[in-house]
């Protein structure tokens, strides 16, 4: 298995576990931690945790919302405003989680590079 896939899977698993104990920014902790312990290279540093959390949050909200006919999602997608599209709202949710995780991962990577050198 490539490191990318390992990082992807580990990010999701860790994010899932931490979601039980920590607020939303646990995804930043996850992005940071996985990039320290499962270091990736180049763009993957950002994109693997980004994609992992995007998928995780997208699917998680899909499961919650889908079992309730997207009643609230449709309303929130008017509020934000996303034209009432619950799909777009799930995508935005995923992107936001992904961004937070990805940026924290870049920080983790930079830190690991500094630590390695010293």
């Amino acid at each position: 298995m490539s490191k990318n896939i390992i990082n992807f899977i580990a990010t999701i698993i860790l994010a899932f576990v931490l979601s039980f104990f920590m607020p939303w920014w646990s995804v930043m902790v996850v992005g940071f931690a996985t990039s320290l312990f499962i270091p990736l290279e180049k763009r993957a540093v950002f994109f693997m945790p980004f994609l992992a959390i995007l998928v995780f949050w997208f699917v998680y909200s899909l499961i919650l919302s889908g079992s309730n006919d997207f009643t609230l999602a449709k309303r929130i997608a008017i509020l934000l405003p996303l034209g009432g599209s619950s799909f777009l709202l799930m995508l935005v949710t995923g992107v936001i989680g992904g961004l937070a995780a990805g940026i924290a991962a870049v920080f983790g990577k930079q830190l690991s590079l500094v630590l390695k050198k010293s």
Partner: protein
Amino acid sequence: MKYIKLILSFVLTIAIFYALNTKFGSIPPIGKFLNPYSGVWQNETDESISGEILIPELKDQVTVHYDAELIPHVFAQNEIDLYRAQGYITAKHRLWQMEFQTYAAAGRLSEVIGEKALNYDRQERRRGMGYGAEQALLKMKEDEQTTLFVQAYSDGVNSYINQLNPQNLPVEYKLLDYKPEAWSPKKTALLLMYMTKMLAGGDEDIENTNALRLFGKERFDLLFPDFFDITEPIIPKETDWSYIDVPQTPTPNSKPVLDSIAETIDKPDPNYGSNNWAISPQKSATGNAILANDPHLGLNLPSIWFVMQLSTPNHNAFGATLPGALAVISGFNQYIAWGETNATRDVIDWYKIEFNKEGNQYKYDGKWKNVTYRIEEIKIKGKESYKDSIRYTHHGPVVYDKNFKSDNEKTGYAMKWIGHIGGNNQKTFIDLNKAKEYSDYLKAISNYTAPAQNFVFASTKGEIALWVQGKLPNKWEDQGKFIMDGSKPENDWQSFIPQKFNAHTLNPKRGFVSSANQHPVDEAYPYFVYNDGYETYRNRVINNFLESKDEISIEDFKDLHNNNYNLKAAELVPYMLKAMNIKNFTTEEKVIFDGIENWQYNNDMEEVGPSIWNAWWNVLYDMVWDEFDVEATAIDAPFTYQTIYLLKTKGDDAFMDIVGTEKVETAKDLFNLSFSKAVKNLNEWKTVNGDLNWVNYKGTFAGHLLQALPAFSRFDIPIGGGKNIVNATAENWGPSWRMIVEMTSPPTALGIYPGGQSGNPGSKYYDNFIDDWAAGKYHSLNFLQSNTATEVIIGTQTLTPSN
């Protein structure tokens, strides 16, 4: 380079955290708000209605059966448990609303939504809302039982709040990024003040004073008569008042103070009103008395009402409750049914106050009297608090002074309001829930102070009654119509009308009782009552309907609730159509003229007549009363009924003239002029919004309590009716709860309201009643006679003592 990258990425990490965790303007903290673990996705669910919940301090188990409408049927072993459970269950479905309404009542909205609410909050503090709630709380505390129950309710709400975690916080808290605070008996008092303000918070004293100053006494009396030429009062005209042996307060010949104020505090919507009626067994198709109630209030989501069944082994009540207050407000039990309409009466008066140089004393009875200060601290989200120091006289708070809507250093205007006097109005409803017969009902309502209500009553024994109940000042003739001199003791309220002399009727000969916010009594009633904005149309349609039939059925009741007859238009339009000059009409005018000529005066959805009438009347009314368009002066134009009366009987009066033109206009000129202008307005509206049919033109909506946030509101509700119509559904107010109770043993009832039991916009129960309500349908209220889940029950939850 590596260090620079490290620092950059660190800064970026902190920045993204801050950006996603902070509220910017009206945008919620987006990471907190949208994450699937604790954000709004967790609200994407119906409420749980099964299982066991541990509640501290319960004495016994409480069972809550839910039916398919999500109406909770609560079975407790004693009243303290019952009200604890009511608090818990209400909070479970309506927590955000109940708290938000008390914030609004207390003038604390700035804490939640920031500085933009500051002017509103200042006004509510000046109005003395918090002061009034404290007075009410003192009165409640004088009664041991009320104290216990209100505390139990409060603890019940708090049990729910304590069980909340970030996941299941109602969605509005997540949106505005704040948390609920603990509930307290004071919040219940504030909720009752909120209702008092809504229903007894209006007056025209300052506006009347300006009108009197500008037009003189004779003209004022023509425009604002105490009684119109016709009166169809709530208490039948033939009532014999000779038993009243306490006279009206003698007139001291005191002169009004002809001061001018530019702007007054907001008044509640004068269109809030209601209908209720009951028929005796003799008039009933089934031989049982039947009662109906439909309070007309703002159409909001979550709805102002929450329907519940509340029972102990000793009583069993069912009906509409107000989230935040105890017991059923409009409903029934095994023996009686009751409902309310607002009983408008002038219970706000204004006194001019003359201060000393320091502003800490005011003139009264030739002496200087000390003011007391009440410091109001308004907390503002993200800003420093605003402090307002409000002076209180023995009349009440000095609302207008140099710090608020006035600039005179040495004078101010103090408000005397029944809402500041306090009263244990909660007890009335707790006792009504347990009442078994007329005498219990009478005892329950007799201590009720405000907002004065027309309490309709019917019993399984076949009795019907109606009391105009409230604590009502016994005023001298004309007292409080205008601003009074606050330094003269004779201008104070001298006494109250003894409760037993409040107007009422029991089993009247005509076989029905009814009220629709009209005049409570005619001139024969021995106390001073004057037209304070009484309704003059719905009452006549209702009474005509009830008089015209010998045997009235439940179907007739439904028809009457949904009656769209526009008596107001019917009293003026034919007169105008006949009087107008139609020779020189343009084609556009001809089309609109035909539209209204063919109208049968029903405000049905697909008619264009009501739209034309509405547009026309608005223009005409403003044209008639152009004299009232005075800059920087608080003034109200005369009431609709008197306007129509003058148009038809005094068409050449000087008021009909348009001041800005050289020609001298009469009513007939105004008909044509206003019609042409209305046609233009209508065609402009049509270009932008499409079809002129009434449902489209009216655009009824139920707006979310947060300024009708579109995402959580319902627009374009398909329903007819309108202002001054029995089906009083206007743009944003209307029959907020329709109830019909047949006094079988036990009673059989129907009820519906424009909303849903859940306060969660993510629940299918959030607005699921609206379509049936709009269609004039009703839901059967499943009045369970014992703590057994019948086939109508879809879930049962047990509240169990945790200690």
